[in-house]
């Protein structure tokens, strides 16, 4: 397959096309595309609601090729990664995946992502931001090679209650035995496809990884395999909805990479984002540890929490206050939605101390635009546990055969 951007100069065509682009364009009814990491990707195929329900009720397929992928190899790879990220990588077995974050010297998050261990000394780091320079600087003194492989791998997220069944129809028999965060290798009509039971939806689901030149072939077979179960490609809007329900963080919305913040205090530590469980203080030194130890001692002054908000109006970008009068600000909403599955009005929000604990009450200032008439509502919001949606099927192995 020839690259659609071949022969097109960079400034005329600044966005790259993924290997699935032609298929996606053909299925896009809205012609609604957005830029993501230098690629043009689908925002909405048909309607965000329809795509959302595909993930929750059948299978949604999301093109995640633009996700940045680094291949890390060498005898010092484990030592390097254990120094880079906050979790203990020495516990990561071959063919397993972990979700982790990594920080700068100040203990502020540079990015989050998934770390795959694909061999004794071979890892993949999948993340949102390009950070080759940071990885190279972090590699000083380590026997390790870092290579960006984003364009060498095409990837699809296949997510939803019927995703396992669909992949079995595709010929990936045995996939039902993959445990959450496990990696397996399969063949689809002679094409090598790697699958991991990972995803950004909080549901049963897989991510499948393949050579770019076989991308359209696999797409076609996959859509055919899932046809009777109403498989459907999904865009970024639907993905954003399911990830909020799952309590997952979206870079640039729920936090900004410390490498790209300009103003003081706009960066976030993992402790502030409620990711304490990702930070292993016992494994020895890792990047940002000293700053995080000090922060832990001081205690955080703000924290990302889940909110259950009265009413059914999404609290997009709402400011939060101590009481209905709206005089004392205590935080702001970073992501919000009406959750059709939970039937709750949910949000992720940064709140100041002491409104961290479950049950704390704050007030959200919600603006509604009703045919150009703006209404302002002060609505009570309660701090609740995350995730908002965590069905048993996301962990069940083997999943239900349907």
């Amino acid at each position: 397959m020839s690259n659609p951007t071949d022969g097109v100069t960079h400034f005329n065509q600044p966005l790259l096309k993924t290997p699935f682009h032609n298929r996606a364009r053909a299925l896009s009814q809205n012609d609604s595309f957005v830029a993501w990491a230098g690629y043009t990707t689908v925002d909405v195929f048909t309607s965000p609601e329809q795509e959302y329900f595909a993930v929750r009720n059948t299978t949604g397929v999301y093109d995640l090729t633009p996700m940045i992928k680094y291949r890390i190899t060498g005898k010092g790879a484990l030592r390097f990664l254990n120094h880079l990220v906050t979790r203990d990588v020495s516990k990561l077995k071959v063919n397993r995946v972990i979700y982790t974050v990594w920080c700068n010297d100040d203990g502020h998050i540079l990015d989050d992502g998934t770390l795959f261990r694909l061999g004794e000394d071979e890892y993949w780091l999948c993340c949102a931001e390009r950070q080759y320079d940071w990885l190279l600087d972090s590699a000083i003194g380590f026997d390790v090679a870092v290579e960006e492989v984003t364009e060498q791998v095409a990837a699809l997220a296949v997510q939803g209650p019927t995703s396992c069944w669909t992949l079995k129809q595709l010929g990936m028999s045995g996939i039902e035995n993959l445990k959450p965060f496990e990696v397996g290798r399969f063949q689809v009509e002679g094409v090598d496809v790697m699958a991991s039971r990972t995803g950004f939806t909080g549901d049963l689901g897989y991510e499948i990884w393949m050579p770019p030149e076989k991308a359209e072939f696999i797409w076609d077979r996959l859509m055919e395999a899932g046809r009777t179960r109403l498989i459907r490609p999904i865009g970024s809007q639907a993905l954003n909805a399911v990830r909020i329900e799952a309590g997952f963080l979206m870079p640039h919305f729920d936090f900004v990479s410390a490498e790209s913040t300009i103003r003081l205090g706009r960066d976030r530590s993992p402790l502030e984002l409620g990711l304490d469980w990702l930070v292993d203080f016992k494994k020895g030194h890792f990047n940002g540890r000293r700053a995080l130890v000090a922060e832990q001692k001081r205690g955080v002054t703000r924290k990302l929490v889940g909110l259950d908000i009265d009413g059914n109006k999404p609290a997009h970008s709402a400011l939060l206050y101590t009481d209905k009068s709206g005089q004392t600000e205590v935080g702001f909403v970073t992501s919000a939605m009406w959750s059709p599955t939970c039937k709750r009005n949910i949000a992720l929000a940064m709140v100041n101390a002491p409104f961290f604990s479950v049950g704390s009450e704050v007030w959200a200032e919600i603006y509604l635009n009703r045919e150009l008439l703006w209404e302002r509502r002060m609505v009570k919001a309660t701090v609740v546990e995350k995730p908002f949606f965590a069905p048993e099927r996301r962990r069940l192995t083997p999943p239900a055969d349907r």
Partner: protein
Amino acid sequence: MQAHYDCIIIGAGHNGLVCGAILARRGKRVLIVEASTSVGGPAATHEFAPGFRASTAHLMHLMPRSLITALGLEQHGLQFAANGMATTSLSPSGNHLLLTPESVAAASPVDAEAYPAFLTRMTRLAGALRPMLASVPPRLGTDAWSDRIALLKLGWQIRRLGRKDMRELLRIIGMNAYDLCTDYLKAPLLQGALAFDATLGGNLGPRAPGTVLPWLVRLAMQGADGNVGLAQPVGGMGGLSDALARAAKAAGAEVRTGVRVDRVLVADDRVTGVVLSSGESYLAPVVVSNADPKTTFIDLLGPEHLDTEFVRRVDRARSKGVVAKLHLALDRLPAFANLPESALRGRLLLAPSLTYVERAFDAPKYGEYSAAPAMEITVPTVNDPSLAPAGSHVLSAVVECAAYDLRAGWTEQRDAYQALLIDQLEGLAPGLRSSVRAAELLTPVDLEARYGNRGGHWHHADLALDQFYFVRPVAGAAQYSTPVAGLFLCGAATHPGGGVAGENGRLAAQAVLAKAV
């Protein structure tokens, strides 16, 4: 059972010895370990040909008299074969210039008044930096009063100069040596000599911004009360280092040579000791490294104990050396054309003009060595005949500039380079070549191999505004302490810089006593 100490010092260079001696005098159990079989690092005396001895760092000029007295170095055997040594700026045409106000006045009437006035003024300006050079740098951006007071003191020292001098200091402190020389002086031999001293050991030629600073630092340290001036210890620089080692031992420190530290031990983010390449380990809550920052942090400690941005700063610190060292065993005293024999009691500079020095610095930019090198030459056997067999002599030359990463390769080029240097000297001292019995050339790569300083830099790291004071060698390690509790630095890459001064070791000991033990 492993031996326990209060403090282990890696490297018995002069700073390591000073630091160890001071800590031992304060009652600490100190172990100083040295990879080489003798103490002193480059400030040692080694036999480079049968019966001929030389010192890689061949002159002492920055060590404060107060330190010599405090450590009782003279009681421990330090003697000077010469001090207050004069400098002669060599001229290829034979019109050499002795750098004293009188001979400058005679040779260059336009500089007659300007030169002494210049020296007086610069000494005054440099004096404002002296308290800063003799203290642990403050940290920036802290709330600690001690840091604020140190900064206020520095500001006050500069303000105290008065308006005219303060303006002049602020004008020249980031400036290049070339402009400073041409602002004040006219005689090319004088300008060249000054530019040589300003740029000695660094990577930057006299036209590079920031080259006045190292010269002011040198001037400030030389100008300290009772300083011995340019001096040559009896027995070469080894005479100084041996006295330092004896002073340290007398105070109770243990000095072990021929043992190489393989790595620094860390547990729970604290230093716990060192492991030797023999596998033996010694325990101590404090480890002070006389090694350069790259060796210390990346090789001995390991980057896994540090944060990325810190390691990046260490890795990027400019530490590629451009200095080579030549030692010649001569069977007679070299006869420099038109130069009185008495000048050989002092040092000779081959830096006949600003342009000459600047061009010498061009070579390493392109991975080459200069075909017209600048040199600092001494004939130490004139003051101390014990360094060579009777009637024979040693010529010792600091040579600039030669690239560390020579494009053509040092293995291939070393003979050609040595021949070039001897040719240069032959031009100055006809007949010298035929008197050469043996020669030793130490390229930057050889210096690195012999002394373990990554990059072979004369001062471990360039002395420039961006690697000075509270960012020397890098931010986060500029107060001798490091991000890992219990690990300290005391080498030339720390404040106030290179040269056999001992201040780094003294201040490191001060930092250790203040913080850790």
